[in-house]
């Protein structure tokens, strides 16, 4: 390559290394604090990048993004408080693991699978960006609609125990997600004229409320148990476990890459799809949700697989897939660069220097993450009577911080009570969350398709991508029904 020296000249600057390391550290820290999201950190760091060299500037933001993706899982595992939306899936198995004294193992699992997924995602970005960008462009509203339908079927596999309760939870989630202004007509839906509800129910207060607060309520309602003085943090992840999880990690990463390359789906959906896929295939599927290493690995792989891939539509098409990439797009523009096909012609060396930096960021994530785990896992050893009041304080501040509204603290506590009632009545929270995330996407893409086609239903079967997703949607439902009856027979036999 003729301009290799130019690439290296752009890349081998101490500023770049500092920027990536600083970015990852900021990302992990901010990501681990509930309510402070990677998005906020990226937005706050943006002005500091104005005076930096373009490569260092972008790498700082990418570093924060990646660090934040991982950081969210730390508090999800330790205190059942997802630091970021995507880590809500990690806590399903991560928190039970921590409760069983395997906090360190859960954290390490999350880190290793994050780093591996990140690496795979970067490879996809560097080598397959052009192909994946093409998929993204062919992904219109009807294709999206079927992707969402498929994603909705994972509710079935997440509804552990009672299917009826799982579906009820999902329906309630969908219903609440529809509160706010209608996206087509702008009319109010169940807002009761309240301005705070017009932008729909804030996601972060809901998330914190649903998962963290019920633990706190339950702790203060329960009879006090003597605090057992034991090292709760436990040991790390063994090589055998990593090997066992490897398949799920790789599959989860690929799911993350595809979802990430399609603008507008998001890491949370990727994490849940990966998780339910791993659960479906795992020999230990009954242990999922009760502290299964593979569950943590799959969730984190899906979530971090998205990180590199969201840069695909950004760099190759100039399309930001989520808010963070939109801010990164802003950073490019401040430096006089416009991502998109033209950038590959005019600033190729810069793009390669960026790629090198992005690859390096995975490595730095491993180092920073390892150091973080050392100290963070100590949280698991703190008695709950001391830990929970402080967790609650973080939750309140975090809920307020998202929109700077006291209303969101109310929301968080209200969802805390809902989450607590869910726990008491055995209604699973995960399907509720999935319903809340996917509900608007389902409706929007359905109506968008109809608007585009002017009411012609044939748009829903317009091409191979729709056929593919129709097939796997119905396949997934059929499989669930099949397994339901199989399990039932298996359960009935020994009793009869």
């Amino acid at each position, binding site marked *: 390559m003729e301009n290799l020296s130019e690439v290296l000249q752009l890349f081998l600057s101490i500023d770049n290394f500092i920027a990536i390391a600083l970015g990852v550290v900021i990302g992990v820290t*901010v990501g681990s604090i509930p309510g*402070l999201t990677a998005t906020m*950190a990226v937005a*706050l760091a943006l002005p500091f990048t104005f005076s930096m060299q373009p490569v260092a500037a972008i790498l700082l933001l990418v570093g924060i993004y990646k660090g934040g993706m991982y950081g969210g899982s730390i508090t999800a595992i330790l205190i059942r408080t997802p630091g970021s939306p995507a880590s809500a899936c990690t806590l399903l198995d991560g928190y039970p693991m921590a409760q069983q004294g395997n906090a360190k193992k859960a954290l390490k699992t999350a880190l290793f699978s994050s780093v591996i997924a990140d690496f795979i995602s970067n490879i996809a970005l560097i080598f397959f960006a052009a192909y994946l960008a093409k998929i993204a462009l062919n992904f219109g509203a009807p294709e999206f609609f079927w992707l969402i339908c498929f994603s909705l079927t994972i509710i079935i596999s997440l509804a552990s*125990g*009672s299917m*009826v*309760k799982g*579906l*009820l939870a999902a*329906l309630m989630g*969908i*219903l609440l997600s*529809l509160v706010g202004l*209608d996206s*087509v*007509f702008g*009319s*109010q*839906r*169940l*807002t*009761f004229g309240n301005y705070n509800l017009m932008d729909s129910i804030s996601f972060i207060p809901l998330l914190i409320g649903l998962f963290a607060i019920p633990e*706190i*309520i*339950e702790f*203060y*309602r*329960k*009879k*006090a148990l003597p605090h057992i003085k034991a090292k709760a943090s436990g040991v790390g992840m063994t090589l055998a476990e990593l090997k066992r999880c490897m398949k799920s990690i790789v599959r989860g990463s690929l799911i993350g890459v595809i979802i990430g390359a399609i603008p507008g789906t998001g890491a949370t959906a990727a994490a849940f799809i990966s998780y339910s896929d791993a659960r479906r295939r795992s020999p230990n599927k009954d242990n999922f949700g009760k502290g299964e290493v593979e569950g943590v690995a799959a969730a984190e792989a899906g979530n971090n697989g998205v990180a590199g891939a969201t840069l695909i539509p950004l760099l190759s098409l100039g399309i930001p897939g989520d808010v963070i990439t939109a801010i990164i797009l802003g950073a490019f523009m401040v430096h006089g660069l416009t991502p998109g096909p033209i950038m590959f012609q005019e600033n190729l060396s810069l793009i390669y220097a960026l790629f090198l930096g992005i690859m390096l960021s995975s490595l730095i994530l491993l180092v920073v993450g390892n150091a973080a785990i050392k100290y963070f896992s100590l949280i698991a050893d703190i*008695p*709950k*009577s*001391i830990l*929970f*009041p*402080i967790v*609650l*304080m973080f939750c*309140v*501040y975090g809920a*307020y*911080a998202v929109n*700077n509204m*006291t209303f969101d*603290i*109310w929301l968080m*506590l209200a969802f805390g009570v809902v989450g607590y009632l869910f*726990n*008491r*009545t*055995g209604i699973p929270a995960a399907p509720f969350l999935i319903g809340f995330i996917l509900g608007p996407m*389902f*409706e929007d893409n*359905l*109506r968008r398709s*109809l*608007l585009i086609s002017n*009411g012609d239903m044939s748009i829903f079967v317009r091409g191979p991508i729709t056929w593919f997703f129709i097939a796997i949607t119905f396949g997934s439902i059929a499989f669930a029904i099949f397994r339901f009856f199989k399990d039932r027979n298996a359960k009935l036999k020994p009793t009869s």
Partner: protein
Amino acid sequence: MLFSGLSNVKQIKDTLDVITGIVLLLLSLMLVLYLVPNYIGEPAILQNPMMSPRWLPNIVSWLMLAFSVLLILQGLLVANKSENDERKFIKGSFRRFVIMVIAFLVYVLFFETLGAILTGILATVLLFLAHPVRTWWVYSFAVAFPVGVTLLFVNVMNVPLPLMPY
């Protein structure tokens, strides 16, 4: 004593499903009959019923209705399963629970007027007392954390938490 407690829990489980089902049934009835028609605006002209802002809320409410009936039936007919084990626990003192509720209320009612630091300290101390923390120096956390975290939010993260009473 122990046995009666357990069998009690077993009975409650079925009833609990039925009660949950009834509550959800009432909720979905309210949605279908009152909330959706009255609190969701519909434009005068619609090319397609699926375009209506009421379409999905209606379907979801009806499905909720159907599934809550199923849940009631399940609670009445199907014997409890092992998954319900997590639901039971022995209740602690009522006083502690009340203090927790007060701490929650301190946050929502006084956050704006007293500022983040004071409410944080007050609620944290209350919760420390509720589930008694007997190591005296731990109470310094109740001051250190709200102050430290608020300053972090306000000065480093630019999040305008309300600071002081005014």
